[in-house]
């Protein structure tokens, strides 16, 4: 619907900011996102950056992108294709044009298309995409953003380098004009960020305003968009990334359980932000410990758990591999411990900044000995809060380490979050033994309750001195035992304890559709938004399909097997080579079909829709 003043009202729009690593695209994208969310629109984002801190400037390897999908309807994914591509240089255009919608808008910084940039982007000699017909299918705006920014800020007295760096704020201003959004949120942000350097703050604000004025006065843009606020449930919202939601969940669980929070961690992409975020909360009594390596990180957390803390270690795939021996120790000690793995492309260093769901089988089976552990997986940035909070509740109440499998996509992605009030959070029952638990007055550290859970004791408790360790223990007493039947009994008891958790978790339910549908899509983790969008679109197109999304990967919800038996067609899409599907086939003997993508990228909605249609049309 085009209105008289050239403003098009749209339900949703996808914008991709793309530029060199040094162009400030992540900040620009984040500011655009936060402003958009603040104005009541639903959002989903996908930041994508190179593994190198500063890959050679101007090259394709150095391109950093930030994609935001926002709208007046519910948004579940960052979008398959974009409506608007902001390309700060030739490499950005070349790298990201593939997913721009036909007829989409390209806003380019012409200063990034000089002969050097064209050469670095590996265009052929004499070829400039801005000057030939190659972009004729798109609406292209060529703006010398660099020189306009310099011109606008020439009175500020900033150095040439600082002027250059302000160009992303000029871009932001242009985008605010095109999408009819107020810059106030960002202006507040800049004033706070540069409170110690008011001159720099003023220059950045001037750059934004110049971008807006440029849009308004030059009238070069044929199109402006208006996206209304989304009808989200009433309440108070904030914007949240997956990793920040994890940090807040841990602090919340610590406060509600009354257990001090201890994080033992070693920096690793894409998990380090949790360490950074928690380290800011010293004034909440949070103890963060940057250990010398991944092994010390989990071992320090085991030590703190033994001392009575709510203990956490955060990592990604390579770190997870290093932690496995200690994870076995925590399992046989039967101590609470949260292990958060922000999955990335593997094996080895693999694709450190790209997403993958390829550590599920490692979490299930990747330890020596019989070593079962509960596994939970969040499905969106805000779901990281609920999932990690639940993991904390399970680890404390069931005296077992719990693994949380997030991934790079939701760790860095953000969305609006209707955050809970503290008093609405579920209670966490934390109990420490303070007296002997046997008839003869001795303390039995491995005597279990009806959930097979052993008592927790804080060192320092009088009269309950005892030893625990990695050697197999005699049932109840915890003394070393090599007795054959005792070992089998202990293995079975540890398994039974984990299995018993099914009684404490909710049953699986349909996210969309019902058990009468022709095909079920079974997903887990960060594929949620894409599967949800694909299934809803197909339902609205008249197809009879449904969607169940798992948070509890081990143990599975009690009713999952019965639900799966009802389906002739089960599709399991995963960002890996087929991992959940192996467990599902093994456990329930159902003929599930996999859809696998291993490109370090999330699924697109159309990839999932096409696969569903292919299965339905085969019949």
């Amino acid at each position, binding site marked *: 619907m085009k209105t008289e003043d050239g403003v098009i009202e749209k339900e949703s729009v996808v914008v991709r900011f793309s530029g060199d690593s040094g162009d400030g695209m992540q900040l620009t994208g984040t500011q655009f996102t936060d402003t958009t969310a603040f104005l009541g629109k639903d959002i989903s984002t996908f930041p994508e950056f190179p593994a190198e801190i500063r890959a050679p400037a101007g090259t394709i390897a150095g391109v950093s992108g930030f994609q935001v999908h926002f709208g007046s309807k519910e948004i579940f994914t960052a979008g398959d294709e974009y409506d608007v591509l902001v390309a700060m240089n030739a490499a950005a255009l070349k790298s990201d044009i593939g997913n721009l919608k036909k007829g989409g808008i390209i806003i380019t910084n012409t200063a990034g298309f000089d002969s050097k940039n064209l050469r670095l982007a590996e265009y052929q000699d004499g070829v400039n995409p801005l000057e030939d017909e190659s972009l004729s299918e798109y609406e292209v705006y060529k703006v010398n953003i660099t020189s306009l920014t310099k011109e606008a800020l020439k009175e500020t007295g900033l150095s040439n380098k600082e002027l250059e760096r302000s160009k992303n704020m000029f871009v932001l201003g242009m985008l605010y004009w095109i999408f009819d959004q107020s810059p106030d949120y960002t202006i507040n942000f800049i004033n706070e960020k540069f409170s110690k350097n008011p001159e720099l703050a003023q220059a950045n604000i001037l750059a934004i305003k110049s971008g807006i004025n440029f849009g308004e006065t030059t009238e070069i843009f044929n199109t402006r968009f208006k996206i209304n606020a989304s009808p989200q449930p009433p309440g108070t919202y904030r914007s949240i990334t997956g990793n920040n939601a994890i940090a807040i969940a841990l602090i919340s669980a610590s406060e509600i359980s009354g257990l001090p929070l201890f994080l033992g961690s070693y920096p690793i992409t894409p998990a380090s932000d949790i360490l950074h975020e928690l380290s800011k909360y010293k004034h909440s009594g949070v103890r963060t410990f940057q*250990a010398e390596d991944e092994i010390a990180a989990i071992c320090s957390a085991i030590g*703190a758990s033994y001392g009575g803390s709510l203990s956490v270690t955060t990592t990604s795939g390579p770190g997870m591999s290093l932690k496995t021996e200690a994870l076995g120790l925590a399992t046989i000690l039967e101590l609470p411990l949260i292990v958060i793995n922000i999955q990335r492309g593997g094996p080895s260093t693999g694709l450190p900044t790209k997403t993958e769901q390829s550590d599920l089988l490692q979490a299930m089976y990747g330890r020596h000995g019989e070593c079962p552990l509960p596994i939970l997986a969040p499905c969106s940035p805000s779901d990281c809060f609920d999932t990690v909070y639940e993991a904390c509740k399970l680890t404390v109440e069931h005296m077992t380490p719990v693994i949380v499998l997030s991934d790079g996509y939701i760790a860095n992605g953000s969305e609006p979050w209707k955050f809970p009030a503290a008093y609405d959070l579920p209670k966490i029952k934390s109990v420490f033994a303070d007296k002997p638990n046997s008839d003869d007055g001795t303390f039995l550290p491995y005597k279990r309750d009806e959930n097979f859970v052993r008592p927790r004791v804080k060192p320092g408790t009088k009269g309950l001195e005892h030893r625990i360790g990695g050697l197999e223990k005699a049932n109840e007493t915890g003394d070393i035992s090599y007795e054959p039947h005792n070992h089998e009994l202990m293995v079975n008891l540890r398994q039974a304890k984990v299995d018993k958790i099914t009684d404490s978790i909710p049953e699986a339910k349909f996210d969309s559709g019902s058990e009468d549908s022709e095909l079920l899509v079974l997903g887990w983790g960060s594929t949620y938004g894409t599967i949800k969008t694909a299934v809803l679109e197909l339902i609205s197109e008249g197809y009879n399909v449904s969607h169940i999304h798992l948070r509890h990967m081990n143990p599975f919800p009690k009713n999952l097997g019965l639900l799966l038996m009802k389906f002739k067609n089960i599709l399991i899409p995963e960002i890996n080579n087929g991992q959940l599907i192996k467990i599902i086939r093994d456990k329930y003997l159902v003929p599930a079909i996999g859809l696998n993508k291993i490109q370090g990228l999330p699924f697109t909605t159309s990839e999932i829709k096409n696969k569903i249609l292919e299965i339905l049309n085969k019949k």
Partner: protein
Amino acid sequence: MNETNNLPVLEKLTYKDFAPDQDVKWCPGCGDYSILKQVQGIFPELGKKKEEFVFISGIGCSSRFPYYMDTYGMHSIHGRATAIAAGLKASRPDLDIWIVTGDGDAMSIGGNHLIHTLRKNFNLNILMFNNEIYGLTKGQYSPTSHVGLVTKSTPFGSIDEPFNPAELALGAKSTFFARSLDRDPKHMKEILLEAHAHKGTSFVEIYQNCPVFNDGTFFIYSEKGTKKEESLYLEEGKPLIFGENNSKGIKFDGFKPVVVDLTDGKNSIDDLWVHDKNDRIKATILASFANGSNGTHLPRPFGIFYSIDKPTYEETMMHQIEEVTKIKGRPNLDEILSGDKTWVIA
């Protein structure tokens, strides 16, 4: 057990209170027995409640130690005792934590955790039983075995340059290093008490005889015929004297330590090096005595090489938490949940 509930807080403990009813399962004649006896012996003198002590160990013969002390204890995994103890101490500064480890556990598989624990300076006590061999895995060479040692994994002699634990500790910014040996219980007891009194990570190397796989390695430092000539007992503020009838001393020739005869009239006690455990340079030179590579044969020092006061990690951590809380105030959970930028949808 029931009667103890009514006793005053600091009850009088004896070594028997720390001996659990478990059979001790080291080999007959193992040096570990002597160390266990001394540790059990000093614990009643440490002025702590029994439940405040925690033993953490890794893997190896020495690491069975926690099972033989009736305190809180964890027998963990190979090399990781220091890392586990670091997390425990950071979260529970009130506990009195002891790490028992061996030369393989501490310096090979756990080397990284050891050096970082030393530099961070938690208030911990590390007892490293050094027998220069792997015992529990039945006789392979260790990172402290000397070049040429014939073991199961080095049938033609070890080709590895060994670690010098004192040099390693000082290089890792240890705030306390001492050496003792299993066959000198009186000296060991003194050193253990000093190690415990040190606020910071105290690292004690204890020469320990393995009668099965490396018998007699340290006997020259403890047996009658050789002890006086080969051992040098360090005493704070005293000159370095050793030898039969205290007839020898160590003095500096520039920065080079040399052995002098105190009976030939050329040198007197006043010329000798006076031990100062706060002096890092002297400690570094003492550490090098064991290398035997500077052309002079020097006796092996026993005692406290180095000890300085430095704030502990956990003190500094708590201090930072208190300071930040003083400045920012403790936020309530609802403030944390909401963050500082919210919007309302009606």
